């Protein structure tokens, strides 16, 4: 399956497995940054992506927040979309079937305001699952709606309880998406592991704010919003590293990734896959650019499989001894 390049060098094995599921490569596109595929299709050959994490879906459709929803910041952006989505019924009747046409994996991201709603949405999708729907990403970390799950994401017990509940409802991949807006991500990673999650993904956006100095009004209509983009990459990387030390389940790294080099950092820190978010807004084909760049990197570095990079951080002995 792994081809040999004309220069004789073996192509690196880009495949990744998450429990039974095999992905083409480690590069997913992040929830809320790729729509439901149809919009970006024109600019991005979806089938070159490992998979698409769909926009958070809730039981009922949500109109989202009033404008302004996005503000550019230094090497990043704030958003306050407010989980605008079509609701789970349209999701299963229109979006999933549309996405089923592509040779790529689909992970349905779910947002809700109660245990029951999370379960109901998941079970409804289970009942209408399409062949390439491989799992769920549970958004307990949206900072810009009042009832967007952050009350779960900042509470270890509720995170564990929710994960246990959802675990009972599906055999597909169950991925819990964690928030960086906590003192330590470690206990959350451990709670997810205990409750049987297949993986965790992190980070969601950081709580941020911007003010119009002439009107004295917050620039985002929800006062604060979620910060994403290259600005947050160092924070995301630190949290992936801390989660890696804390738990044994796979980690999907997210936050400020724009290049193959960024991706390699996340893999070394301990993630086995990554998601591309904000970068899709700049280049709708960012995901495949990153995947392609990653393959080239592996080949240049003579690394035969992408898995060899995962969790390959080298910390010198004296630092380890000093407790770092």
């Amino acid at each position: 399956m792994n081809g040999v390049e004309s220069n004789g060098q073996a192509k690196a094995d880009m495949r990744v497995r998450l429990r039974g599921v095999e992905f083409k490569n480690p590069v997913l596109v992040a929830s809320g940054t790729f729509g439901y595929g149809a919009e970006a299709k024109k600019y991005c050959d979806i089938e070159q992506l490992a998979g698409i994490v769909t926009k958070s879906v809730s039981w009922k459709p949500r109109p989202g927040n009033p404008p302004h929803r996005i503000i550019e910041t230094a090497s990043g952006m704030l958003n306050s979309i407010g989980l605008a989505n079509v609701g789970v019924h349209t999701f299963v009747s229109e979006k999933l079937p549309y996405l089923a046409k592509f040779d790529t994996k689909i992970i349905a991201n779910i947002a809700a305001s109660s245990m029951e709603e999370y379960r109901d949405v998941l079970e409804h999708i289970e009942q209408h699952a399409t062949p390439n729907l491989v799992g769920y990403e549970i958004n307990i970390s949206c900072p810009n709606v009042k009832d967007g799950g952050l009350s779960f994401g900042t509470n270890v017990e509720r995170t564990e309880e929710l994960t246990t509940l959802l675990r009972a409802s599906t055999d597909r991949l169950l991925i819990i998406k964690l928030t960086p807006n906590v003192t330590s991500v470690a206990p959350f990673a451990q709670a997810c592991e205990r409750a049987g999650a297949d993986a965790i993904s992190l980070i969601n956006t950081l709580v941020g704010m911007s003010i119009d100095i002439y009107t004295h009004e917050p620039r985002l209509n929800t006062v604060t919003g979620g910060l994403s983009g290259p600005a947050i990459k160092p924070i995301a990387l630190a949290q992936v590293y801390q989660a890696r030390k804390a738990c044994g389940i796979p980690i999907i790294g997210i936050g400020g990734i724009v290049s193959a080099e960024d991706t390699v950092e996340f893999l070394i820190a301990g993630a086995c896959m990554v998601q591309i978010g904000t970068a899709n807004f700049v280049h709708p084909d960012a995901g495949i650019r990153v995947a392609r760049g990653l393959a080239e990197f592996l080949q240049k570095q003579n690394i035969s499989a992408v898995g060899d990079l995962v969790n390959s951080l080298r910390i010198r002995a004296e630092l380890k001894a000093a407790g770092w």
Partner: protein
Amino acid sequence: MLAPGLVTLRFHNPKVARETIAGQFVNVLPKAGAIDPMLRRPFSVYNTDGDEAEIIIQAHGRGTNILADTAEGEMLDVLGPLGNPWNYKSGDFKTAVLVIGGVGVASMLLLTRALVKEGLPVQSYYGARTKDLLALQDLTNLHVATDDGSEGFHGSVINMLRKDLEARKIEQPKLFVCGPTGMMRAAAVLAAEYGIPCEVSLETEMACGIGICQGCPVPTDDTTFQKTGKRFRLVCMDGPSFSAETITI
């Protein structure tokens, strides 16, 4: 230079040049490879000519300042054409009335051309703060208003238009409006008053320009909301131009 503060960028892009219909826009990266500023900036396609296209940039912020400084020969990273065209084939008018404020002029050349091609008469009402800020070329049947009276009508372009509507000078008009929000709101009110169709081309912040970020909503008006169940429409996908009566500017 069209007028002080406005810079025209011409670039080779067969896709944009050949496929753009009046009213569509492109999303342009201020600096390829840079991560700050990071997001693309949307600009109306001002002109197309063979395989080349033009945009007009009013430099006033981080991204537009960089773009206005683009050197001859530099590469421009352009995504487009995006959005929907002006709805100039709606058939509900006999005279197209272009209502223009400031850099809104950038979406009017292609529209004028398209209307002329359809055989529809065009009247252009163009307002600016002062004479020097007018970018006059390419407009047909021009009526100029300046806030300071330095040229044409002394006052707002909306008041000038109101007088002409009052005097029934224009046969079955439809307004095509692009300019500052205040002007678009006033035009919408005027159109409602006279019961004439009115289309406005909106500006909102955009992250993607292609419908994947949901960052560019415009609230619908209550009737539209009740009819469609949609509280918002997206300027990049559903617009940028909207029938004024369906939205809340």
